[in-house]
């Protein structure tokens, strides 16, 4: 089987190199080839990998960790979720291929992750064309204008979602489908807390039997994926720990001071996109800091921002804005930590 594939690939390479027009699409073939047979190249840009695994295995690990969330999304919100994921892969993939063909670069597998994470942070009822617009904006303006995977400042999936949230506020914030029901919409736990002070039961929050974005509702699947990521050392444990810890402490204190606008810690931890964001998006190796000290600060500031946006602003959920906001500061935090570590080096 593998021999046959290898022969097919070699034949395809020959055809491509012989033809002038087709040879522009060499990156596409290269990506397919590497997908099956691995690569012998060394990773140059971020994420910096100091292990024997290369970028591809690294991304595949994240993909495996996200799969339980995707499965939970399909289980709760129906077959439509698979359509969303396909739209995201196709629309984003076309942009990715277009850019790599024009710029004559390799196609990078970073998109495999963006393409699956992005549909998981969308509302389940969003029209397909809207999802396509979001992923195109995310890939082009979140990643390609900065030079491709490893050079982006912002998390591309988050850029896509923020664009949608600002461009289509009604579709993105008001219609949340109830799990297992096709046409019934209701408010998410965070919205009903903000509106009426109602707290959903922690058990339902944990299982995911609540309205919300596709992949964020089932907390058990997210926690499973997070444990897998941390055991394989693909995600650093410092960011989720400091993020969630800060949020728990702050919400405990603020809940005592302003019980009306700040929910108790357990509810805050289990509601909204917090866990999903903390585990899959805040730990993105490209857009988060790479020094350990900076990771602690990064997580703490994320927690402070999220609690403040949830409690003080008009938005019910602050994870998205907190992560995008802190992405800007991650190089700065790294520089601060490096300057602190090497403060005596120049003397």
């Amino acid at each position, binding site marked *: 089987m593998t021999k046959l594939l290898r022969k097919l690939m070699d034949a395809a390479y020959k055809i491509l190199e012989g033809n002038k027009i087709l040879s522009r699409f060499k990156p596409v073939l290269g990506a397919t080839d590497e997908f099956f047979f691995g690569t012998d190249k060394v990773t140059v840009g971020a994420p910096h990998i100091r292990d024997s695994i290369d970028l591809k295995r690294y991304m595949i690990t994240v993909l495996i960790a996200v799969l339980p969330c995707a499965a939970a999304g399909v289980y709760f919100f129906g077959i439509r979720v698979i359509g969303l994921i396909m739209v995201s892969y196709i629309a984003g993939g076309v942009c990715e291929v277009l850019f790599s063909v024009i710029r004559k670069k390799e196609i990078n597998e970073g998109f495999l992750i963006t393409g699956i994470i992005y549909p998981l942070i969308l509302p389940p009822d969003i029209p397909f064309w*809207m999802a396509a617009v979001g992923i195109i904006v995310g890939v082009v*303006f979140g990643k390609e*204008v900065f030079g491709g995977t490893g050079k982006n400042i912002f998390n591309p999936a988050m850029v896509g979602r923020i*664009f949608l949230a*600002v*461009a*289509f*506020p009604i*579709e993105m914030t008001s219609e949340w489908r109830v799990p297992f029901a096709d046409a019934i919409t209701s408010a998410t736990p965070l919205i009903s807390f903000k509106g009426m002070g109602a707290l959903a039961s922690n058990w339902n929050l944990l299982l995911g039997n609540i309205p919300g974005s596709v992949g964020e509702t089932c907390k058990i699947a997210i926690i499973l994926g997070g444990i897998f990521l941390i055991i394989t050392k693909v995600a650093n444990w410092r960011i989720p720990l400091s993020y969630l810890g800060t949020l728990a402490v702050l919400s405990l204190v603020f809940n005592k001071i302003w019980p009306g606008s700040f929910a108790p810690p357990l509810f805050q931890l289990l509601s909204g996109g917090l866990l999903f964001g903390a585990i899959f998006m805040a730990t993105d190796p490209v857009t988060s800091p790479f020094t350990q000290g900076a990771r602690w600060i990064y997580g703490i500031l994320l927690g402070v921002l999220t609690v403040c946006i949830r409690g003080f602003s008009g938005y019910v959920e602050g994870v998205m804005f907190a992560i995008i906001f802190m992405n800007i500061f991650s190089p700065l935090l790294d520089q601060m930590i490096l300057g602190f570590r090497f403060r005596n080096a120049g003397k």
Partner: protein
Amino acid sequence: MNSRKSKRKKLALRFVLKRYSRIFLNTLWNDNPICRMVLGICSTLAVTNRLANAVAMGLGVTFAMAVSSVSISLIRNLVPRRVRMIVYMIVISTAVILVDRYLKAYFPEISEAMGPYVGLIITNCIIMGRAESYASVNKPMASFIDALGAGAGYTFALLVIATVRELLGFGSIFNIKVLGPDWTSWVIMIMAPGAFLVLGVFIWVIRSIQKSYDATP
């Protein structure tokens, strides 16, 4: 005898036309105020949510720039270097007040929609830039053509950006619905972030066409 004279006249005319068209095209395209000089960005972001506003703004700036460039070019040898900025400012303000009054009298709705941005044409960097770098050292006719070119380039940029923004943000062009009643408005295009996005893409595309990047050695 007579024919030779007219021939020479024709040649001279053609030479002059060629020179002026080069000046015009230079500021319209090669040195486009938005894409190459990146001047006048504030007004570009502010008034491009509707095409009608963009047209009014583009024409207003072009008019103000033409008037002030010619006047500044006429008095360029009389103004002491030290106070030239203040003098230019007075000339430009006069032209802008003319535009403002005209809009208020004949197009009150557009004047209302654009709010303070008509008065703020005074601070439009393109006008001061052309006055300082071109009109203060060139003859009136050349300055006039130069101002027209810069105005046309500015208007062109405004029209492209406003078309995209109005089409996506309201689903209409010149307030006529063209995308049907089912069109979902892109709220971001009406707001400032959308303007930044479209402006960035516009500059990107134009510079790709011109094949001129700042990074070229």
